[in-house]
């Protein structure tokens, strides 16, 4: 579970170089992510206020937040179902997000789609479709347009390890590799795909072991260490931005919940939860920052309170928001119809 392979692996010393304000932001967004997902999964869902299923990234917040922090204004993300941090970092408001989960007209997709299936081109986020792996050729196409137009932009493509078994994953990665497209493939390897463990998903130990098959660098990084995530993402994004082609970074992590809100994860050995609880990415950053006097307990408390307030407000706002009008069903099938 440490950095490995290719350029700059095990540059743990570099962590010291991440400025304090970046760390503070990382902490803030990880906490905000956790709180929003907590509210959705453990409060609103249980109150019956969420429409449909719920998937969260508890314990994996370092990945979407640590990588998403690297997104420049014009970079584009294709997040998947455990990447709440991306939406928050890209400025999608908690209000619209909660409304999305509640199926309201004010949600990101106006009630047309639900939960993580949200996207907004104004925020450079492409909406996830359920079909895993489908976002890989799409991200390649996004990057293709950047390359064609000579733009200084990178596509951030997210997937779980299970999604890499899809044919579309292979086709999309290969296309990106052949045309040296500016896209980074971020893999959250939380070791399970629903109930399916790694060894029933692939024959290799790491997803990154596939990278050489596309002449592409592939790093394996501790996904519960947000600073390592940040640094590795920077390395990968710089590579892609400089025209060298795609890059794959695999983050080892663990899904600290069931697959979705209705799954008790009975198939996961209890010890694994205990083991990974100790590696909680938020706790780790807090410990590191406090031990370096980069943040005080007071500041943390203030942060927590702010987040609670933001999420309270979002829930309240969303709960008051109207549902779409039934006839909205017919809108937007085609342009201008």
């Amino acid at each position, binding site marked *: 579970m440490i950095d490995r392979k290719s350029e700059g692996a095990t540059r743990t010393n570099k962590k010291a170089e991440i400025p304090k304000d970046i760390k503070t932001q990382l902490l803030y967004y990880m906490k905000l992510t956790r709180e929003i997902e907590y509210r959705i999964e453990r409060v609103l869902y249980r109150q019956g206020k969420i429409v449909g299923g719920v998937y969260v990234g508890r314990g994996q917040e370092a990945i979407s937040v640590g990588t998403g922090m690297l997104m420049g204004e014009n970079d584009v993300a294709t997040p998947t179902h455990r990447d709440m941090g991306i939406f928050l970092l890209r400025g999608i408001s908690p209000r619209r997000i909660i409304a999305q989960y509640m199926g309201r007209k004010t949600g990101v997709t106006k009630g047309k789609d*639900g939960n993580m*299936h949200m996207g907004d081109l104004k925020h450079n986020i492409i909406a996830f479709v*359920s*079909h895993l792996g489908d976002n890989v050729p799409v991200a390649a196409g996004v990057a293709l347009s950047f390359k064609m137009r000579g733009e200084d932009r990178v596509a951030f493509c997210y997937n779980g390890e*299970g999604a890499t078994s899809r*044919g579309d994953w292979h086709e999309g990665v290969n296309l990106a590799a052949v045309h040296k497209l500016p896209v980074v493939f971020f893999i959250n390897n939380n070791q399970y795909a629903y109930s399916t463990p790694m060894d029933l998903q692939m024959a290799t130990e790491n997803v990154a072991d596939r990278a050489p098959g596309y002449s592409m660098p592939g790093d394996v990084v501790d996904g519960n260490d947000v600073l390592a995530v940040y640094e590795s993402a920077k390395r990968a994004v710089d590579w892609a931005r400089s025209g060298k082609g795609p890059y794959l970074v695999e983050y080892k992590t663990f899904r600290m919940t069931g697959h979705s809100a209705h799954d008790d994860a009975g198939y996961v050995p209890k010890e694994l939860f205990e083991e990974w609880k100790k590696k909680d990415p938020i706790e780790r950053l807090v410990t590191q920052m406090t031990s370096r006097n980069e943040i005080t307990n007071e500041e943390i408390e203030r942060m927590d309170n702010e987040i609670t307030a933001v999420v309270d407000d979002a829930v309240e706002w969303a709960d008051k928001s109207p*549902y779409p009008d039934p006839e909205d069903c*017919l809108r937007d099938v085609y342009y201008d119809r």
Partner: protein
Amino acid sequence: MALTTYLEAIRQGIWEEMEKDERVFILGEDVGVYGGAFKVTAGMLDHFGPQRVIDTPISESAIVGAAIGASYMGMRPVAEMQFIDFISCAFDQITNVAAKSRYRWGAGVPIVIRGPSGGNTHGGPFHSQNVESYFFHTPGLKIVQPSTAYDAKGLIKAAIRDDDPVLYLEHKYLYRRIKEEIPEDDYVVPIGKATVRRKGNDLGIITYGAAVYTALEAAESLTAEGVETEVLDIRTILPLDEEAVLETAKKVSKVIVLHEACLTGGAGGEIVARIAEKAFDFLDGPVMRVAAQDTPVPYSPPLEEYFLPQTDDVLQAARKLLAY
């Protein structure tokens, strides 16, 4: 006798066929330890072992392709799509490899592809689809969709024993809502045979899957108005039981075709076309269709309700037709 749910009926059917025939095996995502997303294969891994209950990677196309390959070697695979929506990823293997195989070179493909389909559960655009119409244009394939627990068991058994590829479409809204007494002994419901769910002379509703209940509800409420409605559950969408369709049409002279899939390009068009051509002289009014809106399946409850064909929509069409 105890009541058996629609879901349990499917499970029993698969289980019994696996007991009886060692060529039958299961493959799909999370069908093993987890017993499938909806628990249709619960307990099977323990009972039949990992050689016959195979958890696969997330690879719908390979699931179907591997089922085809195994079937060439004499096996009878039952492949699960975790949600039937994901069958789109296996579209090529199904329509080009499986369906054409016997025709091209005489090699039958006795596989079953099954999975939870249908809406009304707020699953949104990717967890609510009815996919039969996407596969309906595929000679060589069979498509069934049971509406009752009895049929669910009888049709899964027939599908497993069938020598051709069968899409077995379960309606997830019915999984636990439908319960009935079903025989304990072995039986099959023949593929290709429709059944009359309710007899009537004034009006006919031809339908299948969960929409059968919408039709029955409409029929019930029409009784109050003195209208006797026949409800024909076609059960097998491909090959279509044209005889039964025409029989109902000729008898009642006024027909509504109802399905939960969206209207345009739906299987309903084919049913109407058969009636319009072959029972034309018997018709006392236009053959009407009631179906979902021509949009993706929306997520939010008011939208989904508007999207799906409701009993009221059927009643409205019925009244228009009856007034003809």
